[in-house]
């Protein structure tokens, strides 16, 4: 018995040692490979740039093609690119930066810009921009480049600007006998509810306006649950005051916006119930063709070309009093690490991906993004692939898209908490009044914490 036990123990020990040794050595061999790559090409590929980003699989493919092109244009540079799943990116980035092993070029989310600048992790590229002859800075969307400016200096260039327009499933509109939405004039919330009701259909084929409509058995929804930004901003409200020091959710306008979203679910039943939303996301329902209106960003295009229905864009419906469409304009930046040994090459890569005309043209033709360059906007709108009314995205960038509120604060804890807590309202456990009364002080406390962090 004992002998067998000893045998087992030593076998386990050996396995354990092998695992440890192989785990340790795999890290080593990676860096050896990199050195080899450096030297094997001799003088030709003397610069290796490490690029760290995140991407969906189809997006990654497109980027790999762009890198090949870049390497062909800059024969001395080799790009060592790593694409992470989006959710892992920031954590990986933090550990890399904390350990002092910065990549040469990497994505930055605008919300993290302040902390990266304050801790000297990304390079001020203003001088490179003014000295380079490659591109014209004036041609980038102002709303794109402003995201990465602080005190007049530029710290990153936009990888893209992401206007979230509202989309409609053309086939479902036509089946219901409805006119297609006007791409230039937003519907009012009242008109919108009316249309969404006509597009919400139960298992017996009744729409949500019919007296026989069964809200517990819906097979097609007028819309997916709303994002809060278009509703709150169109009502003339906001989460924070001008200088982002006060939480301002307890105002009549803000409450009106929450009430509108609440009613879409609980009163009009035109968006999936809490449970239904949880079972299948709006994105899945949109792909299935069982939701008629849905938010759409430019990066969705390529995936949506495969769908068996046609779709178009429209401005987000507007509060009847303001009649102003508002939405969220996302962006992701590409920055140069402050410790890079090859700042010029790293900058060239950033510029190449951000504003090189050919790159931008290729990215927009591949359905990856709206071009970062104003001069390509017309060409983009004329492209003959879906969606219809692509100019709504351009209008959003030019006119009314805004950054998400948490980008104005040092950390997103208050914003996360807003989303977590407002869930109780969407579940129907609280009234709007109760929600804002209870949670305004809670969010204020977290905002104060973020402000305190920024002072340090």
């Amino acid at each position: 018995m004992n002998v067998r036990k000893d045998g087992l123990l030593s076998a386990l020990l050996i396995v354990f040692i092998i695992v440890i040794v192989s785990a340790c050595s795999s890290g080593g061999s990676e860096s050896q490979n990199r050195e080899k790559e450096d030297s094997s090409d001799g003088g030709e590929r003397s610069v290796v740039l490490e690029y760290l980003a995140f991407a969906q699989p189809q997006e990654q493919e497109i980027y790999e093609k762009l890198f090949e092109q870049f390497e062909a244009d800059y024969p001395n540079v080799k790009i060592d690119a790593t694409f992470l799943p989006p959710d892992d990116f920031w954590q990986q980035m933090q550990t890399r930066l904390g350990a002092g092993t910065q990549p040469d070029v990497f994505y930055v989310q605008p919300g993290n810009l302040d902390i990266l600048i304050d801790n000297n992790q990304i390079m001020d590229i203003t001088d490179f921009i003014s000295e380079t002859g490659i591109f014209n800075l004036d041609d980038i969307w102002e709303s794109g480049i402003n995201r990465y400016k602080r005190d007049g200096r530029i710290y990153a260039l936009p990888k893209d600007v992401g206007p979230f327009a509202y989309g409609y499933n053309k086939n479902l509109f036509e089946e219901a006998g409805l006119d297609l939405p006007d791409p230039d004039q937003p519907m009012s919330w009242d008109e919108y509810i009316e249309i969404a009701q006509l597009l919400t259909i139960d298992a017996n084929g009744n729409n949500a306006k019919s007296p026989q409509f069964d809200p517990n058995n819906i097979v097609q929804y007028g819309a997916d649950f709303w994002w809060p930004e278009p509703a709150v901003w169109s009502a003339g409200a906001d989460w924070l005051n001008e200088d982002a020091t006060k939480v301002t959710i307890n105002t009549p306008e803000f409450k009106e916006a929450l009430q509108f979203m609440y009613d879409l679910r609980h009163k009009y039943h035109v968006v999936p119930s809490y449970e239904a939303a949880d079972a299948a996301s709006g994105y899945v329902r949109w792909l299935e063709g069982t939701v008629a209106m849905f938010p759409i960003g430019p990066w969705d295009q390529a995936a949506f070309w495969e769908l068996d229905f046609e779709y178009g864009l429209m401005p987000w419906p507007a509060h009847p009093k303001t009649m102003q469409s508002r939405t969220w304009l996302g962006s992701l930046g590409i920055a140069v690490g402050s410790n890079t040994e090859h700042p010029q090459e790293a900058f060239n890569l950033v510029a190449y991906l951000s504003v090189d005309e050919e790159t931008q043209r290729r990215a927009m033709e591949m359905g990856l993004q709206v071009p970062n360059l104003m001069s390509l906007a017309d060409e983009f709108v004329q492209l003959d692939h879906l969606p219809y009314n692509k100019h709504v995205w351009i209008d959003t960038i030019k006119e009314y898209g805004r950054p998400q509120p948490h980008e104005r604060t040092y950390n997103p804890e208050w914003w996360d908490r807003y989303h977590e807590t407002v869930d109780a309202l969407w579940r129907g456990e609280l009234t709007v009044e109760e929600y804002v009364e209870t949670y305004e002080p809670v969010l204020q406390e977290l905002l104060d914490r973020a402000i305190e962090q920024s002072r340090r």
Partner: protein
Amino acid sequence: MRLVNALSRKEKWIGYLFILPLCLQFIVFMIGPLIYSLYISMTDWNIFGNARFVGLENYLNMLQNERFWAAMKNTAFYLWGIPIGLSISMVLAVWMNRGIPGISIFRFMIYLPVVSSIVAVTILWQWMYNYEFGLINHLLHSFGIKSINWLRDSTWVKPAIIILGVWRGLGVSTIFYLAALQNIPESLYEAASLEGANFLHKFRYITMPLLTPMTFFLVVTGVINTMQIFVEIQIMTPDGGPGYSSASIVFYIWQEGFRYNALGYASAASWILGITIFILTVINFKMSKRWVHQ
């Protein structure tokens, strides 16, 4: 005599030389980071920049933070998984120990979740728990029970995570119990049979007491592992569950450290967790004298 002494002293040194690599590894990779994290826990370090010493501020803030306590309470709730899991695996082990044909297939099935990737397994269970399309709600339906929103209902999310944990842990504890069962001398059962004991008597007075050392081991490791539960929660409820009802203490630490860049604060929370685990383990050992068969 002196020669022997000198020899043994020399041998001692060689012995120390052999364990030196391990000691070095322990100092460099365990003690070093441990002391460093204690220091970090008294600073406002954000991982990128310089750390400013703030004394016990992080600890004091934490004790007043309702989220911290919510996460602690949730974690304590997850400990229910241990008695549930151990009772089931003890019964399974006794059953599997009876030499039923084809038992090795069953053993294999029970052990399979242990060697599967926890991420894959969690995503699988996430689908099983799905409100509309999930297998579990389908089963409930066939018994006429209404669907449960397992992962988005604050009452059900913790039980859901416990069920997954029990299922996943069953393999290990059952195998351990099986090993322990095979060490119980057959003669004890034979003697009991001669005295007229039935199956339940034997289980109650022979099997259970003689399994207590193994139960003790499984309780101690179970408490340590459960206190560090994280992956299931982060995947199934990325926001910590409705009303923060599923967040564990490690989830809280991760959120503070890696989402809000408060590494100092997160280190302080880690120390509190470490100390809590230590205290629980000491209590376990102290209590063991009362119920573990020596």
